[in-house]
């Protein structure tokens, strides 16, 4: 039980927990106190002086970010004295600012712009020469620093000290020569460096990969989750013209607070740069969907419900729960033997990064896909399979272990028919009988379950490329053609199938997953 304190902010009473900062208490009742250097997840620096407010009995204005609430405290956030101080601070921040908004990537999400409009004078009393600084300094592989735009709020320094715990950055020199920089011989290359760009309230730190790529106001935002590892950090996908331009973190205290790793941040790049499989292939030749589906269905049906099984299915731990529910049914229809591909790299770290690079490993386990891919591949390599149905093309990529890669090669040689859900050209083996072009991250919607058992919604941000279809649509088409169904081809309906297959999902409706995700009750889905 935490103690409550009642105070008055701008003549409105508010009760908040003891120890809270005035700036947060004000936020609770919808009063925004402007600030640059305050960040709820970092230590208090109190250096920008933008959040000065008037507090009864205090002789001077106090900063709202470091002043704790107290009983009967009276705070004024927009008295004449406060407004004057704020305008003064705004003016100070702008005297040496280059005012190069027309070429600045921050334009549109810049607090200097926002607060100038709200609290600035609108004209400059500074008629002298500005201090000029370097405009294009590489702090590290992803972060570019414009020294002139920096307001020395030190958020980036504090992030590197307190969150990434790598301490590459510091403030150098004194007075108006004070400047952010990396320690000699170091660069800002920690796995989370891109977050400094997000928290930079001005255009001083920009992301090399996003610099000069697009004006913000041309981009559409979509709330999603990152598919880069088993954490499932909450993100926003920013897209335009069928292309993702950037990924930024979205707050979720239960998952990623407000951070993401650089790998996740840049995970849209291969989607744009790698060559996609854009149309179905049958026996290596371009074909229509009808023909491709018919071929795949015929192969599956032809193998029959044998025991021991003649169909092997390689399951993707990166497909959505809905996709996997249909795949489960497909496996049941064909009595297939199944194997799950493990995609692992590096190690778990103390912050967000998981070595399990699959977004839905826990979901796959929940639907009963438990055996390793190598079992299926062994059966294939041993000539015991008629059809190998591969949903996870990473089986043929560098993520697979050496042992699995060897087995996969042998299996492809031996199994008479290979059906692949293919997304990228360099993954699909040439010997595949049927290649079904599958949508990639950003092109589909569905649910992942992260390593902690939290169901989260991944959303589409762009149109599917070429003639690609979602795994869900492909599986539903195959089932229809094979005479097993109609099966649902929309995620919400497929979710119901998943619920039937996995009892822990029963109390969780598709809609309830929402923007923040929901824990699967009594989760028995160890990753």
């Amino acid at each position, binding site marked *: 039980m935490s103690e409550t304190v009642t105070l008055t902010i701008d003549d409105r009473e508010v009760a908040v927990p003891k120890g809270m900062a005035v700036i947060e208490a004000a936020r609770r009742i919808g009063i925004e106190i402007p600030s640059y250097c305050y960040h709820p997840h970092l230590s208090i620096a109190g250096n920008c002086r*933008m959040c000065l407010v008037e507090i009864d009995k205090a002789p001077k204005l106090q900063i709202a970010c470091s002043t704790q609430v107290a009983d009967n405290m009276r705070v004024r956030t927009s008295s004449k004295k406060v407004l004057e101080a704020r305008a003064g601070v705004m003016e*100070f921040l702008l005297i040496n600012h280059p005012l190069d908004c027309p070429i600045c990537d921050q334009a549109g999400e810049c607090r200097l712009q926002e607060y100038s409009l709200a609290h600035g004078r609108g004209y400059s009393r500074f008629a002298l020469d500005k201090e000029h600084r370097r405009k294009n300094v590489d702090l590290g592989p992803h972060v570019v620093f414009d020294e002139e735009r920096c307001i020395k709020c030190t958020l980036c320094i504090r992030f590197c000290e307190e969150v990434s715990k790598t301490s590459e950055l510091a403030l150098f020199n004194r*007075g108006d020569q004070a400047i952010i920089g990396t320690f000699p011989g170091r660069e800002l290359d920690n796995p989370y460096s891109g977050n400094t760009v997000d928290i930079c309230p001005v255009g001083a730190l920009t992301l090399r990969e996003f610099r000069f790529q697009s004006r913000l106001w041309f981009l559409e935002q979509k709330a999603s989750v990152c598919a880069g590892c088993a954490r499932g950090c909450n993100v926003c996908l920013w897209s335009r013209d069928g292309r993702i331009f950037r990924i930024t973190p979205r707050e979720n205290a239960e998952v990623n607070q407000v951070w993401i790793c650089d790998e996740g941040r840049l995970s849209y790049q291969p989607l744009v740069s790698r060559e996609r499989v854009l149309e179905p292939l049958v026996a290596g030749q371009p074909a229509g969907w009808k023909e491709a589906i018919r071929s795949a269905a015929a192969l599956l049906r032809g193998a029959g419900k044998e025991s021991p099984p003649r169909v092997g299915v390689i399951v993707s731990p990166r497909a959505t729960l809905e996709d996997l529910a249909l795949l489960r049914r497909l496996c049941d229809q064909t009595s297939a033997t199944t194997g799950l591909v493990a995609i692992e790299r590096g190690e778990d770290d103390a912050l967000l990064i998981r070595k399990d690079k699959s977004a839905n490993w826990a979901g796959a386990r929940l639907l009963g896909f438990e055996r390793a891919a190598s079992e299926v591949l062994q059966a294939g390599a041993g000539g015991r399979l008629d059809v190998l149905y591969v949903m996870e093309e990473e089986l043929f990529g560098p993520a697979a272990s050496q042992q699995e890669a060897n087995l996969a090669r042998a299996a492809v040689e031996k199994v008479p028919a290979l059906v692949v859900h293919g997304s990228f050209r360099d993954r699909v083996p040439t010997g595949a009988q049927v290649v079904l072009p599958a949508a990639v991250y950003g092109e589909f919607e569905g649910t992942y379950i992260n390593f902690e058992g939290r169901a989260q919604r991944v959303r589409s941000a762009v149109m599917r490329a070429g003639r690609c279809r979602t795994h869900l649509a492909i599986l539903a088409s195959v089932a229809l053609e094979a005479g097993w169904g109609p099966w649902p081809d929309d995620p919400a309906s497929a979710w119901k199938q998943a619920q039937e297959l996995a009892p822990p999902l029963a109390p969780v409706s598709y809609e309830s997953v929402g923007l923040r995700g929901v824990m699967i009750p009594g989760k028995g889905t160890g990753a």
Partner: protein
Amino acid sequence: MSQPILLANIDRPNSRALSTYRSSGGYDGLRRAITRMRPEEVIEVVKKSGLRGRGGAGFPTGVKWGFVPKDSPRPRYFICNADESEPGTFKDRLLMERDPHLVLEGIIIGSYAVGARKAFLYIRGEFAGAYRAMNEAIAEAMDAGFLGKRIMESEYGLKIHMYRGAGAYICGEETGLMESIEGKRGHPRLKPPFPAVVGLFGCPTNINNVETLANVPLILRKGAEWYAGIGCERNTGPKLYCLSGHVRRPGVYEAPLGTRLHELIFERAGGLWRRGARLKAVIPGGSSTPVLRAKDSDIEMDFDSVAKAGSLLGSAGVIVMDDSTCMVGALLNILKFYAHESCGQCTPCREGCHWLVKIVHAIEHGQGNSSDIDLVDSVAGNIMGTTICPLGDAAAMPAQSFVRLFRDEFEMHVRRGGCPFERSH
């Protein structure tokens, strides 16, 4: 003229030696405190003496000592601020160079009073002589049993660490100083929490100026009532005044608090240095305090009287300016100092101090216009009271007072397109 109290020893031969100091009652105050008084009683005596901090703010020393929590599980620290850097101030240096044991005894008594077993002496790096003197004094005091594990056979022990500054003015600000001792950039901290609760290394810490502590042994030796009888009401005790500028005999002068400023300038310091010169302005408390016009300057030099006259006693660094002084140039000189010494941490000081320099530089060199004069006042006003530490105010106060009290000179610069004074610098 009264007998010097604080400076009683400084002209004696071998004034730095422990034997000299002992021969005039040195360490008797410490003996009384440690052998006959509990720490609370020491604090009570200092409270009763009315001693106010000599570092600039004039806060009652005994009260400050009382703020250090007695029940903290953490160690308590005591700091002597010897980073004397305010332009126009050179009293602490004299005390440390000539009578180091007086300062040392003050530190030990203060440490005993707040229950600190470790004290730090943060000394300005340029003070090589004072550093040597204090070092020798510490060694002598250790040998004589005034410092160390069991002081005068009591249960109380104290170790003193000397820490030399590296030349930043801001490290004289108490929390900047603590950061500096901790090995960090000298960035002043946000307050609260105050050092008494969260100070050096996150522990309860008391910090006093050199001169403040030099008063303490005398209070313990001769009693609070004797001490309170010196000076005037609420402003008790002797004070060291540093006279510099256009006076015949610049230097440190001791006089009771409340001594008239003109007595200090015209009698003690020998008046103005040039025949026929007339007094134009006086800065009474170090370069950060508001300037006074000659006609308003014959005031009593104590904390309250100077404040009533619109300035501050500050460090009692009295800077005297005669009628050959260009007030625009003088302000420019002051502002350059604060702009250079601004730590760059918070916005108004970092940006504002340099802006002020630029405007006043333009006025002094004939590039200014009449609106610039109001701009100085306005920019300084935007710095006042909005910064983390008092350095911003230290630049803003002279700026506002120079412009307000000597506006005609600023206007003359603008009208004439340059400085009408002969340049002496």
